């Protein structure tokens, strides 16, 4: 088993965005494994080992979550709230990656404990640059949070 801290969980419903994100991450030489879930419910299932991800070793948490806000089923802010509400996942670094520039979204994300809020620029060159910085920062520079010991 590879170290799950190397895993990046991308929560994104738009396949084009998924592909472009993957491309961008590859281009900036991020070696981490990219797990993609397409809606909020799946993201929660993945993290808490339920639903379609039932039976997954949930002790293996991703090193970083890239979370879109506008998602089918359960929206991004609710996902974030659940992550922070759970003792085990509450330290998980979560970066909100969205095209919304609404102030209320930014405020809500930070209120719920997002570690960062990055806007998806239409200009893909800028998106590329942003991804590069994210990878460098969160996987190189940033000290990952200690794991929460279960029980």
């Amino acid at each position, binding site marked *: 088993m590879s170290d799950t801290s190397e895993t990046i969980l991308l929560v994104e419903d738009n396949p*084009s965005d998924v592909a*472009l994100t993957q491309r961008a991450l590859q281009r900036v030489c991020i070696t981490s494994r990219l797990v993609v879930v397409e809606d909020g419910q799946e993201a929660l299932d993945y993290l808490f080992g339920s639903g379609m991800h039932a039976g997954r070793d949930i002790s293996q948490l991703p090193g970083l979550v890239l979370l879109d*806000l506008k998602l089918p089923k359960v929206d991004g802010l609710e996902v974030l709230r659940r992550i922070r509400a759970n003792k085990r996942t509450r330290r998980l670094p979560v970066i909100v990656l969205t*095209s*919304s*520039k*609404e102030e209320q979204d930014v405020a809500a994300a930070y209120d719920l404990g997002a570690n960062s809020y990055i806007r998806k620029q239409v200009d*893909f060159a800028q998106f590329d640059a942003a991804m590069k910085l994210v990878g460098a920062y969160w996987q190189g520079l940033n000290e990952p949070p200690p794991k929460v010991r279960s029980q």
Partner: protein
Amino acid sequence: MRTIATRFLLPFGVVAILFSIFIFRETYVTSQYHANDRIGQQAAMAMEFNLAIREYVSETMHPIVQKIVGKEDYIPEMMSPMFVSQSVFEKVQKRFPGYIVRFISDNPRNPANQASPQELRAIDYFRRNPTVSQKTEQIQINGQRYVAQFKARRMKAECLRCHGDPKDAPAALVKQYGVTGGFHREVGDVAGLDTVAIPVEAVVLAMASETSWKQMIMAMWLAFLFGLIIIAFHLVVSRRLSAMARHIREIAATSEISRMTPLEMDERDEIDVLSVAFDKLFEQLRTMQTSLEQRVQERTADLARANDGLKQEITERQRAEEALRQSEEKFRSIVESSPAAMHFYRLESDSRLVLTGTNPAAERISSGGHQNLVGKTIEEVFPNLRDTQVLELHRKVARGDLGPQAFEMPYKDERVFGFYDVRVFRTGPGIIASILVDITERKQAEQELRAYSHRLALATEAAVMGVWEWDVLANAVTWDDRMFEMYGIPSTETMTYQRWAEMMHAEDVTQVERQLRRAVTEKKAGYFNFRIIRGNDGAVRHIQAAASVIADERGQVTNVVGVNFDITGRKLAEEEIRKLNTELEQRVADRTIQLAAANRELESFAYSVSHDLTAPLRGIDGWSLALMEDYSERLDERARQYLGRIRAETQRMAQLIDDLLKLSRVTRAEMRTNPVDMTGLAESIALRLQEDLPHRQLEFVIQPGLGDQGDERLLRIALTNLLGNAVKFTSKRPAARIEFGLTHVKDRPAYFVRDNGAGFDMAFAKKLFGAFQRMHRASEFPGTGIGLATVQRIIQRHGGRIWAEAQVNQGATFYFTLDEAS
């Protein structure tokens, strides 16, 4: 009876005799003193002669004779002072027998000079008192009195030759006198006494003869003086007093006034008689004075009483006069100040009524005045009354044919115009007063009231308004016809408060009665609404009533008057309106809910737009870029250009969406009004703009100290747009100057943002604030044309206004105000 003369002269005679004896005795004693004095003087003189003679012998004769006879010889007749003086005085004694002048000693040379016992006592005295050398005393010699003067002779040193040791003495001396007598003396010892004695009798006798003459003459003088005094006393005092006493006695004998008893007259001298008479007289006088004083007092009291009566009479008269004067004054002032015009006439014998006087009010009612008419007849005073009943009436009253008259009359001539209440009455025979009260105003008021009542009746009829009046005390209610119509009962019915209350809707009675009671209590007008059950058809009618309370001068409510309106029609209309209003409100509420839903929908739409519309754009851009990067060797230059175009348009589309969202947010955002530091806001924006464009030379001039009320977040967006535009449109200038401040436009404060940039043509100014409206080509100045629309939306949301002034290439100025309403 004794007389004053006997009583006075007897003692006086005795005193005079005693006085004479005293004088004679004094004269005698004095003459004795004089005699002694003279004897003393004679003795002293004899002594001095004696001494002088001896001095001469011892000092002058003795030395000369001694020279002549030789030292041892001694001739006493010439050389002894004692001998010589003795000899001289022996001769003197022959002329003045009795006179004794001699020198004696206790141890004399001549035994004749042996001292008598009296003289020895004197020597003894001198020896005991060495400082005393002279002494005078009276002595008895052979039964005769003498005055003797003794002078002590004390031994001196030069005398010792003849009086000391006899061996030293001249031989002749010793031979003559022996060695005993006169020797063995010592210096200072009393050798002997010079004695002069003169017999007193001889001198006294000589003097006595002289004195008796003097005494005789004095006695004669005294007798003469006493005689004179007695005669003078008799003439001056005694005789007159006797005469007065005699007269008083005569009066006493005849008159009762004196009340002197004859007994009292006897055995009294004149002065007693006089004094008794005087006492009696004085007593009588005092009695008389007392009675006089009493009479004076009685008289004074009488006078005072008379005076008081007089005074009272005068005061009463004055009071009566004052009362009369005041009464007159009162009536005069009543007449003078009376608002009623008064004319006074006198009926002459030719039955003319002549004006005798007027009061000021009479002057006032006539334009020309009546004063100058005094003396004229009543026809001349009121020319237009000539030949009317009025004048005849005046005459009849003056004659006494009629009592006081009262009537009203209109009158008009060139002097007087008006309607008058006239009173005519007689004040004396042939004298009348005519009082005219101007009631023109009252008459006019009555006329106006009639007109007003008429108009009111018309008005109430036209307004379908019922009028009612309630006499509270009599509990009588008066209705007009309209009221009866309104309540649907015949106008023949008698109305009372109770009847009215019965017709009222049962639910309204309590409230209306309470309101009415309050109006009466507070004496204020009241307005009530109530329902009645109409009498003729039983229909419920809505009545609006007004009541006005009338109170008498004591504040007692006497009447309540008011009106009634049938407002049933209005009530129904109001009901209708209220129903419509409720419906309308409901509709508004429904619409508001719909609008809120729409707004929410719009928000959700905007959110979707921001998210879902940009996602494909990002895809287009991303895949275009991927195509360019991954297949660049297979694409020619033109294909790459096309891809570039696709990406540029995508960016532009994204920008448009972004700006539209901003505009939508500005419209939707909730306003939070707070104090805003406009200067600080502008400065922070300017700083950020300069930081974003470090290569640009930007000069910001921002007025300090500006503050206002507004939503800071929205104002920041607006100012960012305005200042950002200014920066953008000055990009072709080497030095941009951008100003922000507050100025006054048409006396109203307005903020402005001014630049020295490209400006614009004012012909297009109207389009300036429309969305997607642009003044410049995108190639010159990029932009979506939404910024100023956003600014305008923000300013409008603040209740302000925005406008711009510009010239092409001359820069532009944007003005805006906040909250124009204030």
